[in-house]
C-alpha cells in the first residue's frame, strides 16, 4: 500500500477557505525600511519618545546582524527587507471613529471571529474576549469594560502604550531583548500592533482572552507584538489564531510574544496557526518566523504552551520558558503538520534555573507530501537547578515516502540532582490500521484523518474546547490529498 499511496497528484489543491482578500481602503507607508519609515510608523501611532527610541535602537542593532540560516529549512528564501511595506491599516472613517467598518465586520464574520460583543451576548458564540488585528492595526477589542471591572487590562498594544505606558515600559523587552535575534530585532523596530494583557494580583480572568491576526494587503509583512503579564496569584487562558489570503508571493510574519508569570500565577497560551501555507507546488505562503518566550519569574509560577501548527510555508519558532522561580513549571504541547512543500523547524527551550522546577515536552510532528518537519529543542539544567525534572516525548509520523521528519534535541545537565529524560520515535500510519478502518467502511482519506487525530490527541485535548474542534478540522482539511 505504501507504493500505491502516491503523495501528491499535482492537481490536488488543499482547500484554504480563508484565502480571500478583503476589498477595503487602506493606507500604507512607503515600501522599504529605514529610520524615516520607523519614525513615520511611530508618528502614525502617536507614540511617546521613549518608544521611538526603543525602535530606533533595535533597528540599529538589526542593521548589524545577518539573517540566521541554521534551520533545517532548505526552502527559506532570501528575503529582500527593502521590498516590504511595514505598515498597512484600514482607513478609519473620521466621523465615526468608534464604529467598525462593515467590510471588516464582514471579514471577521466570514472567518468566524466574533469581533463585536452582541454576537457573544446573544449566546451565538461562547464567551471569549477578542482582540482582532487586521494588517497593522487592532480593529476592536471586545469585553474591555467587563474585564476592566476586575482590574484586567486587555487591549491592543497601541492602546496600552497610550493608556498604560508605565506598565508597558516596565515589561517590554524584559523577556525578549531587542538584540536577542535577527527577527526579534526587526520586530522591535517595526512592530505594528498586537495584544496587551495584564491580570492583577489574585485575579482569575473570568473569560478566555484571544487575539486573531489577519493579514490582508499584499506586499506587506505583519509584525505583531504581544505582552502578557500575570501578576502574583493570577490566572488567564489566552488563545491566538491567524489566517491570510492566498497569494503567489511569500509574506513575512515576524512576531514577538513576551509572557511574564509572577509568583503562583498561571498562564495557558494556545495557538492554532493557520497561515496560508502556499499552494501544492510550494508557491507563496506565509513565512512564520516568531520569537515567543515566557519567564516564570515567581515561585510556583506556571506557563503552558499548546500549539497546533498547520499553516505557513515556513514555520520557525521555539516557544520557550525560563524557569527562574523555584518550583515553577512549564509544559509545551505541540502538533505540527506539514504537507506539500511546507517546512517547519519548531520546538521549545526549557531553561531550568530555579530549584525543583519542572518541564514537560510533548511534540507530535506529522509530515506528508514533500515537506520537512523538524523538532528542535533545548533542555538546560543550570548548576542551581537542584531537584529539577524534565520529560520530553517527541514523535514523528510520516505519511508517504517523499517527506522528512527530524528530531534535534539538545540536553545539557549541569546539576547532579536534576533528571532529564528524552524519547523520540518515528513511525508511519500502518497498512494494518488503514485496512482496519476501510474494512469498517471508512474511506482511506477519512481514515488518515482519524488516525492522525488520534495520534495528536494528547495535544489537541489540551486546547480550549472550540479551538480543539477547529484544530481537529484543520488537521483533516490539511491532510486531504496527502494519500491516494
Amino acid at each position: 500500500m505504501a507504493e500505491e499511496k502516491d503523495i501528491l497528484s499535482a492537481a490536488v489543491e488543499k482547500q484554504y477557505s480563508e484565502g480571500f482578500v478583503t476589498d477595503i481602503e487602506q493606507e500604507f507607508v512607503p515600501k522599504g525600511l529605514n529610520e524615516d519609515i520607523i519614525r513615520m510608523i511611530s508618528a502614525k501611532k502617536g507614540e511617546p519618545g521613549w518608544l521611538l527610541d526603543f525602535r530606533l535602537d533595535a533597528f540599529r542593532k538589526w542593521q548589524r546582524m545577518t539573517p540566521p540560516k541554521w534551520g533545517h529549512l532548505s526552502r527559506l528564501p532570501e528575503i529582500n527587507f527593502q521590498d516590504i511595506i511595514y505598515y498597512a491599516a484600514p482607513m478609519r472613517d473620521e466621523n465615526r471613529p468608534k464604529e467598525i467598518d462593515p467590510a471588516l465586520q464582514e471579514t471577521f464574520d466570514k472567518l468566524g471571529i466574533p469581533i463585536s460583543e452582541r454576537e457573544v451576548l446573544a449566546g451565538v458564540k461562547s464567551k471569549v474576549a477578542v482582540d482582532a488585528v487586521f494588517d497593522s492595526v487592532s480593529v476592536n477589542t471586545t469585553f474591555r469594560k467587563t474585564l476592566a471591572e476586575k482590574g484586567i487590562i486587555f487591549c491592543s498594544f497601541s492602546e496600552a502604550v497610550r493608556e498604560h505606558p508605565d506598565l508597558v515600559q516596565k515589561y517590554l523587552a524584559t523577556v525578549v531583548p531587542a538584540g536577542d535575534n535577527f527577527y526579534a530585532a526587526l520586530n522591535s523596530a517595526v512592530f505594528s500592533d498586537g495584544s496587551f494583557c495584564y491580570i492583577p494580583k489574585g485575579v482569575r480572568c473570568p473569560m478566555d482572552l484571544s487575539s486573531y491576526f489577519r493579514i490582508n494587503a499584499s506586499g506587506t509583512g505583519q509584525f505583531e507584538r504581544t505582552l502578557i503579564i500575570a501578576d502574583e496569584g493570577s490566572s488567564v487562558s489566552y488563545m491566538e489564531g491567524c489566517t491570510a489570503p492566498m497569494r503567489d508571493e511569500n509574506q513575512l510574519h515576524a512576531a514577538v510574544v513576551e509572557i511574564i508569570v509572577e509568583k503562583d500565577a498561571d498562564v495557558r497560551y494556545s495557538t492554532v496557526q493557520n497561515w496560508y501555507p502556499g499552494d501544492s507546488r510550494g508557491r507563496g505562503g506565509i513565512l512564520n518566523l516568531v520569537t515567543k518566550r515566557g519567564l516564570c519569574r515567581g515561585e510556583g509560577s506556571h506557563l503552558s504552551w499548546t500549539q497546533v501548527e498547520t499553516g505557513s510555508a515556513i514555520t520557525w519558532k521555539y516557544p520557550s520558558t525560563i524557569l527562574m522561580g523555584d518550583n515553577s513549571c512549564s509544559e509545551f504541547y505541540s502538533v505540527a503538520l506539514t504537507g506539500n512543500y511546507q517546512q517547519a523547524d519548531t520546538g521549545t527551550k526549557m531553561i531550568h534555573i530555579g530549584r525543583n522546577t519542572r518541564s514537560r515536552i510533548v511534540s507530535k510532528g506529522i509530515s506528508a507530501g514533500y515537506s520537512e518537519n523538524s523538532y528542535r529543542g533545548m533542555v538546560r539544567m543550570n548548576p542551581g537547578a537542584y531537584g529539577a525534572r524534565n520529560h520530553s516525548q517527541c514523535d514523528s509520523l510520516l505519511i508517504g515516502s517523499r517527506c522528512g521528519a527530524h528530531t534535534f534535541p539538545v540536553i545539557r545537565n549541569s546539576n547532579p540532582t536534576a533528571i532529564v529524560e528524552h524519547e523520540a520515535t518515528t513511525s508511519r500510519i500502518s497498512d494494518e490500521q488503514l485496512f482496519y478502518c476501510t474494512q469498517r467502511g471508512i474511506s482511506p482519506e477519512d481514515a488518515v484523518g482519524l488516525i492522525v487525530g488520534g495520534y495528536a490527541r494528547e495535544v489537541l485535548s489540551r486546547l480550549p474546547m472550540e479551538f480543539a474542534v477547529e484544530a481537529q478540522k484543520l488537521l483533516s482539511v490539511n491532510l486531504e490529498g496527502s494519500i491516494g
Partner: protein
Amino acid sequence: MDRFYRVGIDEVPKRLTLNEQEHLRLTFVVMPGVSAEIPFEINIGKEGVYLEIFGLYLCPHSERVKFDFTVRHLVGGSHSTQQFRGIVGGTARAEFDGLVYVAPDAQKTEAYQENHSILLSEGAVAETRPQLEIYADDVKCSHGATSGYLNPDELFYLRSRGISEVEARRLQMLSFISPVITHLPEDMKEQIIARI
C-alpha cells in the same frame, strides 16, 4: 565481528563504510584521565547489516570528552543500535552528538540510539544531542537519552543489607554501565571495573 577501541590508546578509525552483509559490533571506551574528541562516521550501504555500537565514558576528574557519531543508512533493510553510557564527576564535561540519518527510500531500516549519563558532582556537565534525520517512512527509528543520578532507594536497599555506602555506589555504577560492557573480553572488563 567485534572491535574494541580504547580511546587515547588504540587508534580509532574516523570513517567506516559497510558494503557487506555483516554483524559488526564496535565498542569505544574512554577511561578516567582521558580527554578526547571522537569523530566517527559509519555509512551503511547494504541491506542485511546488523550494527551495534557501544560507548562507555568514565570522567571522574576534569576530563573533556566529546563523541561526534554519525550513522547513515544509505539503503534500507539494515539494523543499527547505539548505546552510550557514562559517569561524569569532578568538573568533567561529557558531550554526545549522535546523528542517525535514513536516506530517502531506505525502507525497512531499524535504527535505535540511547545515551545515558550519571552526574556525580556539582561542576560536572553532561550534554547530549541525539539527532534523527529521516527521509523514508517504512522504518522504525527511535532514540532515548537520560541524565540523572544513581537511585537513592536502591542505594538504601544495598546499605540495609550491610553493604558500605562506597561499595553500594560502586555496585550501582557497575550495574549502570553493564549493558555496554557485558560483551567485552574478560581482561578489558576487569580493567574497567577496577576503575569504578
